């Protein structure tokens, strides 16, 4: 986390310094406007007092406004009382009504109304957009909602353990920042990398339990498909996609395998290690039989990621049953599929059963009896010799004590 904070701070510093030539231009423009425009006199009037950086109200809150920043901001052309509308003259009353952004931002306000952030007292506009006098367009790097700044903005609440606990939410910032999306954003600065609002939306954020939400289970493939179009198309052709479309909510969508926030690169050891139990959450019998094979034995040792995991044979997104001729596990495709790792695989080789159950006498009689024979051999040999040797040890010791001679077996030395 600290590392992430550092990275964000660094990015922020970089953006501020980049902004300085713009500042200069804004200053110049402000001077020109000052000379010509009458309407801005209202700003200068207010800034005569509020330009003092130390200015505070009776309760000690800063009521200072940085005129330079405000001029440059998206609202820089407005007069102060366009927003602080209860100010009609100077001196103005001590207590003023809160600014109502809804007055202008009607669409955003209506989107917010049924969202999870509808409570304006707990989620004022400034909680995301920041200082009301320093709001920049969303594609301006100084903006709190600039793509590269969004995780930090949302994370100020959703990266907070206490807040997460209070609302029964996951503390997601850390897992996002360590995810492939988070790295693309923080390391590479990719504006196209998925940030919070790419999946959740901005003003109209709905609970994932709401069928209208882009994060509602059946909407997730389309949401991810906004960027991952090809994968989504493959997924929809496969059995999982078809099942979800048919209303089977048990079938997995993207986030069931990849998680929602802690998404890692699928070729990473970390993902390869965690993926088999993920499939096994639903395919319990298949996981248990896979578990008995060499693939699993070597794979479980950690780090040895080359061994076959579920999707190495079954494919990942376009999941097709063995009866489908396009499936990698269709009989006619097995030599190619197994051959990816086992060079020289032939038709006899691919008869190997990667999910064999040696306990199933009807399905695998040969294996069942081989295993039975080996077990009987093992148990009978060990049982016989355990008794034999125990009796022997007792008898020898008894003789030694009876004869009063303590042998230590060293006489050959």
């Amino acid at each position: 986390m600290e590392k992430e904070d550092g990275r964000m701070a660094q990015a922020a510093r970089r953006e501020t310094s980049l902004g300085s030539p713009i500042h200069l231009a804004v200053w110049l423009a402000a001077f020109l406007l000052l000379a010509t425009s009458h309407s801005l006199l209202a700003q200068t009037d207010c800034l005569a007092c509020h330009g003092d950086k130390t200015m505070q109200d009776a309760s000690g809150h800063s009521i200072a406004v940085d005129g330079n920043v405000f001029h440059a901001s998206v609202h820089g052309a407005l007069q102060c009382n366009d927003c602080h509308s209860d100010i009609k003259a100077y001196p103005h009353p001590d207590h003023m009504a809160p600014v109502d952004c809804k007055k202008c931002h009607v669409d955003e306000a209506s989107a917010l109304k049924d969202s999870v952030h509808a409570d304006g007292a707990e989620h004022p506009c400034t909680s995301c957009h920041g200082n009301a006098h320093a709001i920049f367009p969303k594609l301006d790097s100084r903006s709190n909602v600039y793509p590269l700044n969004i995780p930090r903005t949302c994370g100020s609440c959703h990266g907070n353990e206490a807040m997460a606990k209070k609302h029964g939410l996951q503390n997601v910032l850390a897992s996002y920042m360590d995810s492939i999306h988070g790295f693309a954003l923080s390391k590479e600065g990719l504006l196209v990398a998925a940030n919070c609002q790419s999946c959740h939306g901005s003003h109209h954020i709905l609970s994932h339990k709401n069928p209208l939400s882009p994060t509602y289970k059946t909407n997730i493939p389309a949401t991810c498909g906004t960027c991952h179009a090809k994968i989504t198309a493959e997924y929809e052709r496969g059995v999982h996609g078809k099942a979800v479309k048919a209303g089977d909510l048990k079938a997995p969508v993207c986030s069931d395998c990849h998680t929602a926030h802690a998404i890692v690169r699928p070729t990473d050891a970390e993902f390869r290690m965690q993926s088999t139990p993920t499939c096994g959450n639903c395919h319990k019998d298949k996981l248990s039989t896979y578990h008995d094979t060499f693939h699993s034995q070597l794979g479980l040792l950690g780090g040895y990621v080359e061994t076959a995991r579920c999707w190495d044979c079954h494919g990942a997104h376009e999941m097709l049953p063995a009866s489908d001729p396009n499936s990698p596990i269709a009989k006619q495709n097995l030599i190619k599929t197994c051959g990816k790792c086992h060079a020289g695989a032939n038709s006899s080789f691919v008869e190997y059963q990667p999910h064999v159950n040696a306990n199933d006498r009807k399905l695998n009689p040969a294996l069942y009896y081989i295993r039975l024979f080996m077990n009987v051999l093992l148990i009978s040999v060990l049982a016989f010799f355990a008794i034999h040797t125990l009796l022997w040890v007792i008898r020898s010791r008894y003789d030694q004590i009876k004869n009063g001679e303590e042998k230590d077996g060293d006489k050959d030395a």
Partner: protein
Amino acid sequence: MEKRKTGTKMPELERAVPLKVESNGGPMRFFVRFTRSQRWLHAVLFTTFLGLAATGLPLRFSDSFWARGLASAVGGFGAILFFHKFCALALTVAFLVHVKDIFSRAFAQREKGIFWGVTSMVGNWKDVKDLFGHLRWFLGLGPKPHFERYAYWEKFDYWAVFWGMIVIGFSGYAMWFAPFFARFLPGWALNAALVIHGEEGLLAILFIFSIHFVNTHLRPDSFPMDMVVFTGVESEEEFKEKRPMEYERLAKAGKLESRLGEAPATWFVTFARVVGFAAIFFGTLLLILTLTAYFF
């Protein structure tokens, strides 16, 4: 030890040149039981077996709590298979050398009694009688049997290892070179190979690290270790007590002296003891880990 040449010949042949006995000084006489090449065979066998067990067990019990730790102790997940195959190759070579040795003794040197008789490893009626006699003695129902050169449990150890190497070796190579073996084996045989390899390997590990250790080294008469497989020789007293029938047979035939050996060098005994105890320690450790996989 150092200058002995007779040690490389087969004691069964009893044609070793009699060594000079220090009749005045040492009352303790030593008799040769194993040749140098037999001792080497045992050394290669137990080192590679320990290596195979240490690299095989983490695979067999890959979901146990110690599997990953042991795998990385061996040198990481990638090294596991490499070491396993390396030990397997070394053991295969030792096995083939042993088989070649048997055949050259039997056919080139025309050694009588290698396949049948008192000095053969092949079981006979006396072994059956000895087994029941021994069991009766355990229970105090009869006298202790008089054993010949190889007792029944020693023959069992030998044949268990012999059969084990064929079974484990063949199933192991079938998995190693699966596409090749699939040319003449059915697909399910590859499934069977893992079951056989795993179960037979487990049997070998459990047997060697418990039964063999106790029968041969840790039982009260040999405790803490029977050094004869390292030094090749044992004292006359031990010879007489452990294998009275062989001793009497040689004495009657007047061939006892032909089996006389030299007392082993102190440094060698110390060295062998360190190696032997290390082997027993690691074997016991692996045995405990294996057992925990069943109970935890």
